[in-house]
């Protein structure tokens, strides 16, 4: 039997920032830096191509995976194609970390 | 398929009679996995139970005879299928690895030259599967996966206790999990999977064993099991044949198919192994039939 992962009693007392990812797909040249560095892995490749012919990042949020507004994608994007607005704070759904 | 290997096989009484399906399915599975199984050409009863009397050596003789047979035929290892044979042979053999063990006395008594060396190793088929076969090898052979079928492995006592002979953690056995998973089954870990079924008490104290049967099946059922996989003909009998008696006091208990783990494997691998001697109650057989019609199922032979 694997060790149990207990629910944390006071999770509702904690809030985490939630960001809204804005992607300017036409600026993207598909370098993949944002996908690689996103700590919560909320970005995925698009299925279609932008007019330059590149796949670009799209948001893929779930209950557990949502933008935590660290804004690192903003910093690493060489083409200023992605930015984040912190919109709300969310209740954490599960434990995170490296 | 991996390179084949050859093992000496000790069947025991019941695998040649009531539990013939256990033997035939195990042999079919072994063949499919490239294991060459060589039945000892001469063997006798294992003794069925290991005597716990520390003084009297006589009850060990049956086991020792088999160990000597194995050495005579040049085997250093014996594989067993029946949990009881495994337990008895292994406990007897363990006795000879300790000092002041009575081996000399037994050899003197038997007047056999050279007598038993004390060096044969006893394995259960499950240990072979764990150590020599990778789950992917099993998976590759599956033709009709058990998708969605919830199988609860039931280990009972004889494979796990006493701890010197345990083939797995006595409190958290999971040796069958990778195999059943490889067959595509949903493995049900139920809390009573290492509890005794009452064993040979069934001959004299049937009512006590029926109580055990109820508790074990009920536990597996409430964890969502569709069937129970066993490794001992006695467990099989107590859990399967006594279900009718259980239902006289617990009418709510649904019929639970009880299969040897090798049968579960053989069916998923599409191997034909039926010998036609299975003795199972009608409703258990019906439940089994409802569970999953196998593509090359030669038909049911429910008796009684």
């Amino acid at each position, binding site marked *: 039997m694997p060790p149990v992962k207990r629910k944390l009693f006071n999770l509702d007392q904690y809030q985490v920032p939630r960001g809204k990812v804005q992607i300017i797909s036409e600026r993207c040249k598909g370098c993949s830096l944002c996908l690689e560095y996103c700590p919560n892995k909320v970005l995925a490749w698009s299925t279609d191509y932008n007019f330059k012919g590149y796949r670009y990042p799209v948001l893929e949020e779930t209950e557990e995976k949502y933008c935590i507004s660290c804004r690192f994608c903003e910093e690493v994007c060489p083409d200023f194609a992605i930015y984040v607005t912190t919109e709300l704070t969310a209740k954490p759904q599960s434990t995170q970390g490296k | 398929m991996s390179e084949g290997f050859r093992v000496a096989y000790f069947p025991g009484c019941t695998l040649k009679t009531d539990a013939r399906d256990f033997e035939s399915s195990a042999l079919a599975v072994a063949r499919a996995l490239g294991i060459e199984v060589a039945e000892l050409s001469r063997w006798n009863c294992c003794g069925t139970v290991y005597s716990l009397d520390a003084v009297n050596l006589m009850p060990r003789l049956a086991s020792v005879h088999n160990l000597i047979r194995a050495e005579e035929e040049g085997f250093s290892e014996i594989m067993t299928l029946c949990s009881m044979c495994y337990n008895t042979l292994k406990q007897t053999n363990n006795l000879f690895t300790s000092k002041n063990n009575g081996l000399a006395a037994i050899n003197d008594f038997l007047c056999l030259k050279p007598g038993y060396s004390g060096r044969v190793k006893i394995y259960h088929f499950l240990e072979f599967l764990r150590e020599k076969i990778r789950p992917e090898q099993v998976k590759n052979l599956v033709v009709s996966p058990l998708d969605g079928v919830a199988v609860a492995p039931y280990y009972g006592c004889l494979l796990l206790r006493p701890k010197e002979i345990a083939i797995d953690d006595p409190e958290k056995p999971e040796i069958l999990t990778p195999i059943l998973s490889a067959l595509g089954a949903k493995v049900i870990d139920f809390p009573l999977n290492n509890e005794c079924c009452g064993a040979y*008490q069934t001959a004299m104290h049937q009512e006590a064993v029926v109580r055990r049967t109820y508790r074990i099946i009920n536990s597996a059922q409430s964890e969502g099991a569709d069937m129970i996989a066993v490794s001992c003909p*006695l467990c099989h009998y107590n859990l399967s044949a006594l279900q009718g008696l259980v239902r006289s006091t617990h009418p709510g208990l649904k019929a639970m198919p009880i299969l040897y783990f090798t049968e579960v494997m053989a069916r998923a691998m599409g191997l034909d192994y039926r010998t036609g001697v299975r003795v199972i109650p009608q409703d258990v057989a019906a439940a089994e039939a409802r569970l999953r019609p196998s593509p090359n199922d030669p038909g049911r032979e429910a008796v009684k």
Partner: protein
Amino acid sequence: MKIILGNSHPQSLFAQRIEALSRQKLFACYQCGKCSSGCPMAESMDLLPNRVIREAQLNNEPALMSCRAVWFCSSCFACAVRCPKGIDIARIMEAVRTLQMMDGKSITEKPSCEDNGTLPQIALISHFRKFNM
């Protein structure tokens, strides 16, 4: 029944015989009762396993020689693997059975195989070997 301990007590002979037959340390038992807690057959026993050991410690021969509990033990070793003191209680049960048998008290019930032809031989033989030696 009051047990009179002291010089008139017969020198723990019975307890010593149990120890010799089982090669277990009777007096290592501190009566925690874990063996009884998990025994699958205890519902049918007149004395719980820990009581069997206790009566042996008390050298209470009459109690153990008339005890039915030992005949319900199916040697599943659930007690032995969990005993905090490493005592193999199943062996003590077997020792008491042996002593009862030596006293000719054993075979009071016959296997019910006559009226159940389906009983597999493994059940019959193991039952016979366990209880009729």
